[in-house]
């Protein structure tokens, strides 16, 4: 019998993906990756979703990853395929989303020759990824692919690029299964130091005005971490706030939940952060959107910071008690230590603290006024609130993605999340065009769920081509456009900071979104006045297919509350519903973004 021919690189690649549990790839073909597409054609284990733009492939993989906790996989060709993916990669890097992106490359002997569709992909994506690889020998291929998945999902998750020259894909590449041996250099700490846990409990148990500040690290750690967080909140009786990335970590309906904090967070969350004497940050990174002016951020608190990435600790804010570890493990250790003692916090002080928080809550910082007369204009807040209420009443498992801007903040404020992994938004990078492809990825992972992209009319146009993908795969994603005919957040900043000079922020020459939906084989709906809103939402949910609902909202509405750039938490602007609140923007603040 002749010796068995070794498998090709493309075959070995697919086998490695299967062994990593990959079921879906989001991709777009091209010359350099044709061998992979040929191998995909000849198998059934891995499903390929053909997107319309490589950026969308990465966002779709992010949506898939964020809603499932699994690694999202992308396949793009060399040159422009890879460069188009870069925005998605940086988005995943900033938000710590596990993605493996396979990029085609010109054959090894042409690398560096300015060949057709050649780009220095590893060079370009080095600062855009957690790690990247260029496979130069078939013998390395299987090991590198397994390594890429390990790196993407371990520690603080992130995007990993594997650059695959065409000759490696065609030539022989012996298969090797994933290894159980520890990684030779990358072994992040996940188990917290018991001494740090003990010190944290010492401080937490003595707190008089505590606050728990939970971020995306709790979501990334898995649903168990969110359950443990809620358990810890109940056990301690402490108030809890979530970052934009952490929404769903603590149920929105929990009485101890203060809402989101930060630039557009609630009054009670921000003032509690400002007035706290002990802060426990778990899985958040003191982003500038959360802290406001650093030297006035939570000035009187002893800070405990638990993070899986040591480089996040003491980066922006100096903390007294650092804890390096996975969120679920940290919370489990804290719960055990708290119960072992058992810790007895100062209940009288806590009661006084809650009384203070309830006074802040009574300001009702998210209040808005919706006129209900027939023909009245729709307030964007009301549109999101009704969408939330109708989704909740439908009893369906609902996943929300967003684009970036005012609508994103209104979605974060008015859509209430009871569970983790239901909220997909571009937090760190703030990528317009994220929501539609992310919703696609979510719907692929959860075919029976209700998946809604809350969008703005400007952002949605940035990846509108993905309507074609929705049609091809019959993905019943609902696109709920808060259409104010402005890049609303730009307009808001121009109003507040630049003397109402609305430079280039008007969304001119908009398409007819109803006809646009129809041309992409979807259903288009429109609500122009408040009396039409509920009916449009009900019809949107009832349609078994993709829908664009174009909701005309108040063009002048601004997103409040707001901490102006360079201001502190106790200098929030509360908006027109609340008289007598204003913070001037300083010259220094004007320089910030």
């Amino acid at each position: 019998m002749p010796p068995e021919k070794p498998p090709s690189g493309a075959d070995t690649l697919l086998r490695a993906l299967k062994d990593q549990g990959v079921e879906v790839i989001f991709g777009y073909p091209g010359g350099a990756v044709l061998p992979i597409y040929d191998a995909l054609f000849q198998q059934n284990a891995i499903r390929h979703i053909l997107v319309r733009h490589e950026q969308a492939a990465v966002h779709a993989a992010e949506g898939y990853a964020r809603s499932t906790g699994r690694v999202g996989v992308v396949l793009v060709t060399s040159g422009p395929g890879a460069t188009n993916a870069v925005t998605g990669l940086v988005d995943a890097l900033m938000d710590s989303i596990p993605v493996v992106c396979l990029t085609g490359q010109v054959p090894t002997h042409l690398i560096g020759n300015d060949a057709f569709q050649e780009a220095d992909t590893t060079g370009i994506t080095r600062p855009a990824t957690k790690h990247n690889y260029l496979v130069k020998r078939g013998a390395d291929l299987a090991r590198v692919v397994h390594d890429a998945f390990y790196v993407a999902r371990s520690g603080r998750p992130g995007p990993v690029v594997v650059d695959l020259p065409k000759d490696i894909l065609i030539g022989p590449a012996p298969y090797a299964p994933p290894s159980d041996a520890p990684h030779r250099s990358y072994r992040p700490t996940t188990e917290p130091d018991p001494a740090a846990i003990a010190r944290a409990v010492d401080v937490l148990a003595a707190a008089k005005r505590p606050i728990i500040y939970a971020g995306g690290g709790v979501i990334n750690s898995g649903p168990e971490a969110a359950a443990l967080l809620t358990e810890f909140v109940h056990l301690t009786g402490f108030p809890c706030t979530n970052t934009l990335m952490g929404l769903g970590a603590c149920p929105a309906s929990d009485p101890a939940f203060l809402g989101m904090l930060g630039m557009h967070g609630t009054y009670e969350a921000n003032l509690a952060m400002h007035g706290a004497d002990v802060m426990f940050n778990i899985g958040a990174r003191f982003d500038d959107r959360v802290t406001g002016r650093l030297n006035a951020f939570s000035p009187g608190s002893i800070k405990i910071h638990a993070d899986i990435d040591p480089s996040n600790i003491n980066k922006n804010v100096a903390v007294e008690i650092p804890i390096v570890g996975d969120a679920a493990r940290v919370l489990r250790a804290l719960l055990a230590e708290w119960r072992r003692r058992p810790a007895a916090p100062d209940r009288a002080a806590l009661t006084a603290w809650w009384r203070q928080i309830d006074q802040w809550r009574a300001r009702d910082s998210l209040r808005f006024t919706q006129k209900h007369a027939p023909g009245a204009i729709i307030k964007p807040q009301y549109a999101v609130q009704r969408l939330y209420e109708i989704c909740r009443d439908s009893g369906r498992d609902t996943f929300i993605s967003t684009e970036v801007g005012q609508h994103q903040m209104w979605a974060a404020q008015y859509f209430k999340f009871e569970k983790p992994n239901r909220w997909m938004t571009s937090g760190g990078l703030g990528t317009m065009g994220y929501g539609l492809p992310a919703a696609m990825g979510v719907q692929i992972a959860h075919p029976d769920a209700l998946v809604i992209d809350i969008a703005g009319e400007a952002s949605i146009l940035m990846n509108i081509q993905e309507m074609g993908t929705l049609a091809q795969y019959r993905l019943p994603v609902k696109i709920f456009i808060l259409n104010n005919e402005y890049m609303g957040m730009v307009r808001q900043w121009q109003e507040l900071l630049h003397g109402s000079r609305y430079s280039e922020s008007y969304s001119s020459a908009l398409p007819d979104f109803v006809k646009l939906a129809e041309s992409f084989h979807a259903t288009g709906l429109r609500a122009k006045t408040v009396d039409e809103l509920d009916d449009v939402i009900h019809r949107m949910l009832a349609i078994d297919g993709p829908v664009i609902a174009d909701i005309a909202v108040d063009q002048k509405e601004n997103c409040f509350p707001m901490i102006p750039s360079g201001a502190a938490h106790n200098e929030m602007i509360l908006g027109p519903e609340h008289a007598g609140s204003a913070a001037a923007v300083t010259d220094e603040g004007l320089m910030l973004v």
Partner: protein
Amino acid sequence: MTRASHDQTHTISVLVDNESGVLARVIGLFSGRGYNIDSLTVGVVDHDRGLSRINVVTTGTPMVIEQIKAQLDRLVPVHRVTDLTVQGPHVAREMAVVKVISTGENRVEGLRIAEAFRARVVDTHVGSFVFELTGAIDKIDAFIELMRPLGLAEVSRTGIAAIMRGAATI
């Protein structure tokens, strides 16, 4: 806790996989995050295990120095990050080759200074010398300053190689 603002200089040794792109990752980290590089050297130190050692001298506030170490440590091909300045006494040595073009009095004076600095003459021509000098950074700086009025023409420096004193290893 307040942010200490005074700058400190630290010598950091980083053990990395000897693979293509690893130096670019380290340099890119420094430029991308706005950290200083005062000196940087790299060389293979263990062929069997495929390890290289990068020695970097950097300046920043204590918070920035801690950030630099944490950021280096999270790079996938990095095995170990050691702050020699914190670890205790260490030796940090640099080599320089220095070309001096001079005749007459200056030539004699140059040779005399070179002897005092234990610099070796590695190339001699009628009108020029090339000196080779090893030592701490400030010693090399001092030598170069002394040579400047005597016909200093060109300098090439290696950057530092550093190691802990005594039996301790990184």
